[in-house]
């Protein structure tokens, strides 16, 4: 296989040992009103055949721009290469005419992107999207192209590859779509594969499968990989060498082991220190005061109707939450973990009174069921939410001070002057200054925006804050600071958190108790020490084992390659799933059989 790749790459193939791709003094700039602004400055690295080079850095570090520059896909006309060279073998790419660049793209250098959900054309069949990529570079018949497409799909270990050819992207899960993207990229056996955050949008178990797949493909084909990621765990697992970037500049470059164990630059050290690691839970779990819980759920059930037929009768239910019992104590951080579609966000919405539910929810001793509008509104003061995407949850046309004051206005608390003072105090408390109150959301960074959302949630002095993936979109260094803030606020205001996350490492760092959710039901629940120290349910173990460890020396215990998709929570009417009866295996550690 390696032979084929080498012979096919022709003139550009350097003699063994010479790099397949060299980037020298690359500078990419954006044209602004104030002149050229560099996004990437003077970046140099070389990529050897069969090697994996990780470009790591936080958002805005220029890592994605670098990959687009190599692909010749910088968004024209504002962003362009203003200096340096990129050599693929002996071909210089930066000055290459578009027609020649086209013949290299997808053929010699291929790329996979972060968002598998949106990176495939929704109105074109999978088969067509694959064959089209092959036909763009090689002259062959439809049947031959189809055979090649099929073998590419088989190579990425997708289930039922023939069937996939006729399907459309929306019929596949995120993990399957990313496999299709990889199949498309490797179909022509490129010399270089650029993977831009290939697993960031995927669930942790799917991430594991995709990373394994990339590694196996590289071994079989000898493709050189440029892996662009913000996740130091992924870097540690995959990379031979690492380039660390910050604000468009390379701050450190070296073998993976060296960078992780003996980082030279302060930025790299800070970056590595901020990475949440498993097995490092901070301090002991909070000692919980007795008494009535802040939230009490009994037999909570949320189902969504799917209609069909002539009269639009309900034919199926989506069993989003299926019989959940749990208590959240005052001042505790209760984490709910699980993969996409497990029902964790729906559970949160039900607790905030945003979806209809069956069963019982008590907030601060008051049952949510059967309340009138006014009562629900009053109850909402006790439950506030912080969402994943702070930009999307702040109205872009309102000043941030007004946004934070809005809950107070809605509930008719205080007069204008006192509200202003209260908001100023909140800004101060979450680490912003009160003179920033008069600015608009777009003037803040992601971390600052999330602080604004936290201030807004705090405004009503709730007893429970639901944080739904609230730190998932933040860079690790920012994430660490926001987590610190949440922890401090909890103690100061005696707030309980329902902390919803897919990130096991973050959960281990912040949670007092943890519940693992799967297909709408809780399969395991216990203290942080119980869940992470002694996970009992196979699904919990799978989740924990799948987390990439930010240590290149870490040896992963051999495990069976679990393939597969989580089954659908959609069921025909009358076909109710079996409720799991949790069993206490000691000191409140509950496990489903």
């Amino acid at each position: 296989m390696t032979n084929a790749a080498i012979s096919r790459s022709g003139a550009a193939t350097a003699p063994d040992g010479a790099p397949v791709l060299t980037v020298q003094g690359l500078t990419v700039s954006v044209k602004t009103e104030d002149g050229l602004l560099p996004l990437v400055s003077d970046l140099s690295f070389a990529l050897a055949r069969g090697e994996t080079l990780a470009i790591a850095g936080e958002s805005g570090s220029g890592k994605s721009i670098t990959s687009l520059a190599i692909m010749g896909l910088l968004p024209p006309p504002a962003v362009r290469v203003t200096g340096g060279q990129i050599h693929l073998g002996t071909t210089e790419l930066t000055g290459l005419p578009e027609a020649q660049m086209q013949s290299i793209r997808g053929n010699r250098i291929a790329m996979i992107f972060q968002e598998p959900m949106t990176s495939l054309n929704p109105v074109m069949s999978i088969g067509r999207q694959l064959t089209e990529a092959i036909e763009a570079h090689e002259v062959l018949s439809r049947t031959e192209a189809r055979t090649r497409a099929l073998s590419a799909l088989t190579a990425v270990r997708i289930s039922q590859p023939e069937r996939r050819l006729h399907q459309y992207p929306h019929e596949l899960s995120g993990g399957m779509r990313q496999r299709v993207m990889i199949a498309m990229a490797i179909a022509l056996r490129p010399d270089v594969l650029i993977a831009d955050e290939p697993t960031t949008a995927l669930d942790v178990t799917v991430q594991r499968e995709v990373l394994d797949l990339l590694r196996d493909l590289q071994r079989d084909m000898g493709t050189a990989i440029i892996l662009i990621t913000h996740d130091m765990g992924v870097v540690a697992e995959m990379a031979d060498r690492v380039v660390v970037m910050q604000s468009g500049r390379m701050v450190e470059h070296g073998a993976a082991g060296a960078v992780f164990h003996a980082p030279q630059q302060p930025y790299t050290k800070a970056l590595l220190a901020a990475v949440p690691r498993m097995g490092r839970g901070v301090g002991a779990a909070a000692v919980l005061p007795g008494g009535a819980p802040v939230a009490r759920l009994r037999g909570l059930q949320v189902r969504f109707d799917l209609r069909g037929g002539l009269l639009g009768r309900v034919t199926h239910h989506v069993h989003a939450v299926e019989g959940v019992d749990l208590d959240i104590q005052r001042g505790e951080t209760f984490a709910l973990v699980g993969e996409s579609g497990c029902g964790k966000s729906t559970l949160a919405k039900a607790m905030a009174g945003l979806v209809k539910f069956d069963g019982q929810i008590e907030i601060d001793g008051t049952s949510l069921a059967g309340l009138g509008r006014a009562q629900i509104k009053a109850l909402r003061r006790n439950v506030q939410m912080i969402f994943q995407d702070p930009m999307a949850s702040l109205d872009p046309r309102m000043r941030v001070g007004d946004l934070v004051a809005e809950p107070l206005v809605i509930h008719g608390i205080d007069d204008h002057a006192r509200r202003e003072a209260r908001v100023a105090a909140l800004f101060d408390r979450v680490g912003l200054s009160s003179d920033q109150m008069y600015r608009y959301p777009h003037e803040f960074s992601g971390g600052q925006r999330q602080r604004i959302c936290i201030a807004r949630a705090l405004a009503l002095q709730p007893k429970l804050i639901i944080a739904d993936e609230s730190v998932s979109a933040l860079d690790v260094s920012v994430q660490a600071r926001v987590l610190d803030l949440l922890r401090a606020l909890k103690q100061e205001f005696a707030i309980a958190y329902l902390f919803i996350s897919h990130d096991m490492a973050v959960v281990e760092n912040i949670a007092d108790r943890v519940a693992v959710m799967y297909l709408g039901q809780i399969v395991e629940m216990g203290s942080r020490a119980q869940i992470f120290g002694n996970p009992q349910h196979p699904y919990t173990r799978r989740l924990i084992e799948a987390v990439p460890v930010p240590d290149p020396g870490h040896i992963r215990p051999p495990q069976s390659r679990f393939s597969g998709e989580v089954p659908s929570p959609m069921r025909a009417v009358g076909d109710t799933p079996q409720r799991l009866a949790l069993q206490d295996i000691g000191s409140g550690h509950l496990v489903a059989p």
Partner: protein
Amino acid sequence: MAAYLIRRLIQAALILLGVSLVTFFLLYLLPADPVRQIAGRSATAQTVQNIREQLGLDQPFVVQYWRYLSGLVQGDFGRSYLQKSEVAVLIWARLPASLLLMAGAISCELLLGLTMGIVAALRRGSMTDQSLMITSFIGVSAPQFVVGLLLLYVFAVRLGWFPIGGYGTFRHLVLPSLTLGILGSGWYSRMMRSSMIDVLRQDYIRTARAKGLARRRVIFRHALPNAILPIIAMIGIDIGIFMGGIVVVESVFGWPGIGQLAWQAIQRVDIPIIMGVTLVSACAIVLGNLLADLVTPFIDPRIRLR
């Protein structure tokens, strides 16, 4: 699919029932008296009263409407007050001309509008883009009788390329279609431009380019089918706008369609014809929308009709 179709057809029938009720009521409230139109100025009060009774116009509204409706379900649109002929026959005779004009106009506006929109989107921010958008703005805002007369003057009177009016050959069709189409093309070019710009920003376009596809293929195979989706629904709605325009344009060009028929009927308070034309137009709008909805799943596999 069959269930969907049946449900939509039932909905359509209910919509038409509503339209008939509202139109009939509005015409009932009309201060103009159709009987006076029929009888003429010199008629005696007795003659007027006789005609009124003969047409049943002395009956209360409910009775009148009930009579009309019972005729309607048997396919009877009533008789014209003045033309001494069945309304159904009159409309049937003129429908082909109007449908032809509509087809011509839709082709015009799609051809012009989509091309302008695509070109503008691909050259976003350029002079081409700006001049195309100014053109489309003029197209949207110019009244149709002005556009019609202008086209007539330039292309029929001055240049003599097309006949001044009438019906029969392809050359007769061009100017009226263009007049109707210019308005629509203004809308479509703007919609297509923003839809296309939106699609060109999507991740899958970047994927298509990353595969090394030629620019032409990226635009026509990947961007266009996605960008056109919102436009299809628009075409269904558009038929309604046409029905308004057709009255003006058919009068300007002497086009023997139902628009002209309606215009004459309105002037002479010929209620059965007005009712008939309104119902046929409503029918066209409802069917146009249904058709647009039925076509969409063939282009967008994500849409399932149920």
